[in-house]
């Protein structure tokens, strides 16, 4: 019985130890912290940063921007998914635009948005624009997934439009929507921080990444990157848990 938690711990820690070891080895071989600082230097820099009030201010603002962008993107994606699934004119109008939007490089979006909105809002808008097409596509696929048999049953039993949506379409679309949200979270972080790097708002992790690059503070660059990765993973975990709770609530919406 005691062997099981130990095995689980080893299974969880082994990959981290392996990659940290590889990083340590590479840093020792290169021996130039400017190109590749070792994990010790990076984590000591991060430790120093953690002790400053400014660090938390930058983290909070970046988190706020990415979360707002994600929420806006989810809202946009779900709305577009519902509209394009049920209204052919909306489908004809929106679907090509969303497909084109998905193919536009993030950098082009950032530069364009920088011209249109203030630098503080560009990361929010960019995150939203990255999330919207992913969620849209998944929601649309989910709404198209109920089979003919269930739809015919709903018609035969006289279910109205709203009830049919709640009992047939919505439960079918929710798992797709969940996948869309989770897979777009990483995109929201990457694009949001990239936008911050290019727009350099006053309080932002991306701005700190930019300064670290400007002043060749590679350990600091790594420390901020570790911060972004940790935040992204934590947010993904929180969203995953929240969505699982929601799904566990059951399908009896009727």
């Amino acid at each position, binding site marked *: 019985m005691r062997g099981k938690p130990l095995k689980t711990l080893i299974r969880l820690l082994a990959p981290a130890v392996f990659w940290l070891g590889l990083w340590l080895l590479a840093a020792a071989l290169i021996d130039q912290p400017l190109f590749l600082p070792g994990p010790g230097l990076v984590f000591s820099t991060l430790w120093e940063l953690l002790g400053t009030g400014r660090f938390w201010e930058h983290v909070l603002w970046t988190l706020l921007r990415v979360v707002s962008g994600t929420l806006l993107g989810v809202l946009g994606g779900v709305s577009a998914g519902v509209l394009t699934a049920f209204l052919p004119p909306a489908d004809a109008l929106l679907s090509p635009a969303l497909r084109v939007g998905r193919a536009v490089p993030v950098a082009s979006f950032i530069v364009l948005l920088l011209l249109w909105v203030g630098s503080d809002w560009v990361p929010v808008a960019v995150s939203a624009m990255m999330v919207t097409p992913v969620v849209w596509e998944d929601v649309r696929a989910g709404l198209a997934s109920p089979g003919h*048999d269930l739809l015919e049953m709903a018609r*035969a*039993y*006289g279910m109205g439009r709203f009830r049919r949506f709640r*009992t047939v379409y919505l439960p079918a679309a929710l798992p797709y929507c969940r996948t869309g949200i989770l897979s777009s979270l990483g995109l929201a972080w990457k694009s949001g921080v990239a936008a911050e790097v290019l727009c350099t708002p006053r309080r932002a992790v991306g701005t700190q990444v930019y300064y670290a690059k400007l002043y060749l503070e590679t350990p600091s660059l790594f420390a901020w990157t570790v911060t972004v990765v940790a935040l992204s993973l934590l947010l993904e975990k929180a969203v995953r848990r929240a969505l699982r709770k929601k799904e566990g609530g059951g399908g*009896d919406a*009727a």
Partner: protein
Amino acid sequence: MRLENVTFAYGDKVILRDFTLELPDAGVTALSGPSGCGKTTLLRLLAGLETPQSGRVDAPGLSKTVILFQEDRLLPHFTAAGQLRAVLPRGADPLPALAAVGLEREADTPVEALSGGMRRRVALARALAAAPGKRLLLLDEPFTGVDAENAKKIMKSLRSLRLPILLTAHDAESLRMADTVLTFSGPPLREL
């Protein structure tokens, strides 16, 4: 109820050709015959779910008909009671219909956790719940996977609705419960 000179085909496959049939307007009528002879298509035509290529179908129409499909067609992830709430008017109690099929204790069980026979009974309960105010009950192989004792009990509840009931069946038990048995061969569907 009557079908007059009805022709119906799925693509090239003719299921009914110039088919005429008069059906009793009361009691339980069983349609018997080999699989694939066209019984389900006949029910679908009577329900108004299919339109004949030619001929006339005199039946109450989909809004006045309850159909139990050959497949259970239950809503995934919904409980047994949830299946009924989805077709009942808002606030109506699903328990009486579940009790009629002997599943009142499983009301809060998700359908995925029920056995095949229990799922069939949930589908039957849904048909029972949806029946008030209707004029015709169509049941496609209603007692597949349901034990004889429960089938008898359910048939009693179905009869209490006082609606004309048309069911398809293969098993002797279901046929014995009917007032009239019509036997068919096909396709094309032909009364023997």
